[in-house]
């Protein structure tokens, strides 16, 4: 079963535990500046929104890469950057419509979410379940359940 990151921004408090877990897993330091998942604060609106790669099936980044450094991990469905192949041309960062592939000036390579090989640390670190790792075919399940709970069975029976 493929799993996907599912993000519910309403639950996010903006604590950046996800960014720390991500950067620690991938860079060995607690460093939000190098996190592959980012939490955006919309101060006036009082909203926090985590955002990261959704692992497109027809991935713009993968198709744009001239050296085929981005390949799909068949086990997880993640589009992964092979550091040994990446030449740092940044074409993928232009190709990605969502901005979730970014250049890392310290290494000269690009970085993006790789689902931590199937054990995403951001979801593990999130204290409010704003980020969860669930069945890829059922990321809408919680929202469906919430709406289902609001369904007025008595009214529909009468109708």
């Amino acid at each position, binding site marked *: 079963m493929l799993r996907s990151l599912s993000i519910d921004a309403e639950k996010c*408090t903006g604590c950046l535990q996800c960014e720390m877990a991500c950067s620690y897993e991938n860079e060995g330091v*607690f460093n939000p500046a190098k996190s592959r998942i980012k939490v955006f604060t919309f101060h006036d*609106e*009082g909203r926090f929104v985590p955002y990261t790669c959704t692992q497109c099936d027809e991935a713009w980044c993968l198709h744009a890469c001239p050296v085929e450094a981005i390949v799909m991990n068949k086990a997880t469905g993640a589009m992964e950057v092979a550091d040994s192949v990446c030449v740092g041309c940044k074409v993928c960062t232009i190709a990605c419509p969502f901005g979730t592939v970014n250049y890392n000036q310290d290494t000269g390579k690009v970085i993006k979410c790789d689902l931590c090989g199937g054990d995403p640390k951001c979801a593990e670190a999130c204290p409010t379940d704003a980020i969860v790792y669930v069945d890829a075919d059922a990321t809408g399940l919680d929202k469906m359940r919430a709406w289902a709970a609001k369904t007025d069975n008595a009214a529909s029976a009468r109708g």
Partner: protein
Amino acid sequence: MSWTKKILRVNLTNGEVAEEPLNMDWAAQYIGQRGLGTRYLVEETDPTCDALGADNKLIFATGPLTGTAVSTGGRYSVICKSPLTGAVACSNSGGFFGAELKSAGWDMIIFEGKAGSPVRLHIENEKAEIIPADDLWGKTVWETDKLIHAAVQDPQVRVAAVGRSAEAGCLYSAIINDLHRAAGRSGVGTVMASKNLKAVSVRGTRGVGNIKDPVRFMKSVAEQKQVLAENAVTGQGLPALGTQVLMNVINEVGALPTHNMRDVQFEGANNISGEAMLEARESDGKPNLTTNAACFGCTIACGRISTIDKGHFTVENKPEYWGNSGGLEYEAAWALGAATGVDDLDTLTYANFVCNEDGMDPISFGATVGAAMDLFDLGAITTEDTGGMDLSFGSSEALAWCVEKVAAGEGFGKEIGMGSKKLCEKYGHPGLSMSVKGQEFPAYDPRGIQGMGLTYATSNRGACHLRSYTVASEILGIPEKTDPLETEGKAGLVKAFQDATAAVDSMGLCVFTTFAWSLDNMAPQMDAACDGEWTVERLVEAGERVWNLERDYNMKAGLTGADDNLPARLLKEAAKTGPAEGKVCGLDEMLPEYYSLRGWTPDGQVTRETRQKFSLPA
């Protein structure tokens, strides 16, 4: 590690910035942040110096756990001599600035001297630059934040700044970072402005690493996050209601200081409570509270993000206040509300926004307004003094007017900006200042919670709830229940809380974790992250060392045991209602025992033996 082992020294007089190594011998003794910053202050300044002169220093200090994944590990403190108290000032702030500073590679910034004209400091990792800031002088914190972001073209820069109140010399001005988090108390913002330093902006992309035992650390961090999640206060009460969970609780136990501490219960408490912040408004159907919010790395998320009713008189035709910003926390709601008798949630939220916008400590501000209202009620202050404003207890208009005047440093706002001690002295009633060492009380009446009387009297930075929060034990039963109306045993309780809290404040963590965590929960995280062996015993010892160092600084600054006192109102006028009815604070039953437990002389001086025991500097 997890210190970066680097200090940034900024000489504002000659414009030089320099890197120097952190004194690791001191770090081993004083940990970081509050303790280590104070150690540097003691070493480098004369305690008798003018707090607003060039000889005072201003230290921004992170802790060894700041910037790590330990829950709440994002804090920094600002340390200097206080212009409000003449004692040591150490104000702790959350938000994201502290972690960003650490991530840029710095444990600490030491500002010394005074710039000839307004400047700001910009840090980008190893690079630090003093930049002219004439264009920012006269701007609010919120405007300054926006202008710096526009100037550096980097949305991820974190800014700490002072507002117009500090420029005008308000003695309780705060340093505000991330728009609404404050190094709030004792006038650290006033000291910053006195150096012509308007703002510090920082961008750090190096990260915090060098964890001593990464595997053990990550395991411990995950376990302790779980402890916070499963605790009723840190897992449920604080996220849902914030510190405002306390308003109704403290009112019910008869310890909510009201009308400048004339009363211990406030009839309007429920209207300004955490529960009230969740109720839908009539005008637009929205509650005051939009969401809770976390500081860096915090898995509690007690922060309040609020709005004001757009039609409210305070913000009518002022769209700049219509969006969300930092909402009321308990101490602010108490000071702006119960202390003044104002029970209108929108007025309080507005006053809170303005305190953030122009950098004032809402506790000292609100309590000083309460004192002014007391003086007005007695006829000692009249409309002639205020220029026509009626300062009656309970007046929303008066509160909103005062906050605008102090923010701008105008007219009668200059007098409110002096703090209650100087205000009450000026108008002939020094006994009406509800303060210790010149700093106003926070939100717990020591007639109803006796341990807080000793807490306030002996706090090294003047009246403060964050130095030994015995409310946890006396009201909430954490770690064990004690009787709030009894003085017996409180000396030991206060000392234990003071020492433990000093350790928490020195590691880089938030004291709110202590509703669920003791040092038993923190030591394993500290030990896994940092050089050396960090046991509970060592943390307690370091905390006690920090406490004695601060005390010693104050004594050298000219304070004495006589300053460990409370206003006569709390010692002689009994509580009129509630469970504490008929009680005064029994400070004299606690203080001698406290001195003895501290190893101080009967008049409160640190003895030679105690000094030697903790290897305090001469």
